[in-house]
């Protein structure tokens, strides 16, 4: 068993949360170490605007 795997089993994972902050908060409350990354889909996920932005930006 590799050291990395041992470390994972002994100390537990570190979660990376992308997007909705509440998910990170819930894990934190349960004692899980979380790295949160602020992210949202381009143009709020609107397909028409995303298509337009693909051509303009």
């Amino acid at each position, binding site marked *: 068993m590799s050291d990395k795997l041992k470390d994972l089993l002994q100390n537990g994972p570190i979660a990376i949360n992308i997007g909705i902050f509440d998910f990170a908060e819930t894990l934190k409350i349960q004692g899980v170490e979380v790295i949160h990354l602020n992210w949202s889909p381009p143009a*709020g996920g*609107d397909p*028409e*605007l995303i298509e*337009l*932005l693909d*051509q*303009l*930006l």
Partner: protein
Amino acid sequence: MNDIKQKIDMANAEAVKRINEADPVLVDIAPAGEVIPGLKDRMVLHSGPPVTWPNMCGAQRGAMIGAVLFENWAGSVDEASRLLENGIIRFEPNHHHQAVGPMAGTISPSMPVWVVENRTFGNRAFCRQVEGRQQFGDYSDSALEGLRQWRDIWALSLRKGLLGMGGLELRPIIAKALTMGDELHNRPVAASSLFANGLVGPMLEAGVEKGHLLSTINYITKHELLFLGLSMAAGKASVDPAAGIEYSAVVIAMARNGTEFGIRVSGLGEEWFTASSPRINGLYFPGYTEKDAGADMGDSAITETAGWGGLVLAGATGILSLVGGTPEEALAYSKEMRQITVTMSSSYRMPVFGFQGAPLGIDMRKVVQTGITPIIDTAIAHRNPGYSIIGAGLVRAPMECFKKALLRFGQKYGVK
């Protein structure tokens, strides 16, 4: 990179180059009717995009009534309302006349305005006096007395001094104030002091009568928001040459009338892209709550359009006691604004970021892509006519304006 992306990037570069090269100089303080193009008799200019009397918010209606009474076009509030309602007194947006005005933004012909000339391009812009009563909708006689003193004493004295000194360069004052804790919108305290320092001597030299001189010195040394009218005129004079550049996605106006928030984009001509004026997240003066508040209002977001105000909040943490928030949030706002702007200013720098330039040139494409809308410092007016300022705070420009502009941009330039 495809052809259109290249064209947009080149057009944006030209737009911010012109803003960067601006050299705003205060050249006069003159009655609006004598200097503002197209401002006729029986006409009042107002802030924001066009609006009709039935749709006008309470505070702007109050300020319009105040302007009509100030001009002696009516003898009572009822008569003033009737003249405005019946179209006998016309009203148009400041931005359609090279002008800007804080809050309700009302400019009537006999009000003296700051006249700022952009010496690089030769264009002029105008802004009215900043005060905390009539422009918020208070039409009482004591509120109008402030306008009369500005017209009959302070503006005349300052004009005499200013003309004697041959104008006052504003770029050095703005640049210095940004290193002294100002953001030039809700906090122009350092700039106001620098302005007062610069005008007292010339007023003395010009022989301003002693009573007027003392009254004017008292006014300019105690009015912390005095320079806002100058930063607004300087912002307008600086940004206007960047208008009308084909393919540019740079925002060249953000303005609110308390009913609608509107933006204009360089490559989209004179069209306004509007959404409902947002509610303000702010702090209130004693006796008032958010239930009393009107929606966001004023042309003062020209300061953010020029790259100051909320965009440089990180360097003006002193303002947070007025608008709310923490220094960490202020730093985050300014960092965030870099994600939606084209470049950094070469004239106006921020000590807090190692003297890097202020974020400059809001690109409406980036706003839609990132979901980050410009942050704006603002004041709060009452929802009903007849009140003075009731608070101050922060507000975000509504995303809907930028989405509408992007769709029109695609339409205009043949991108589906």
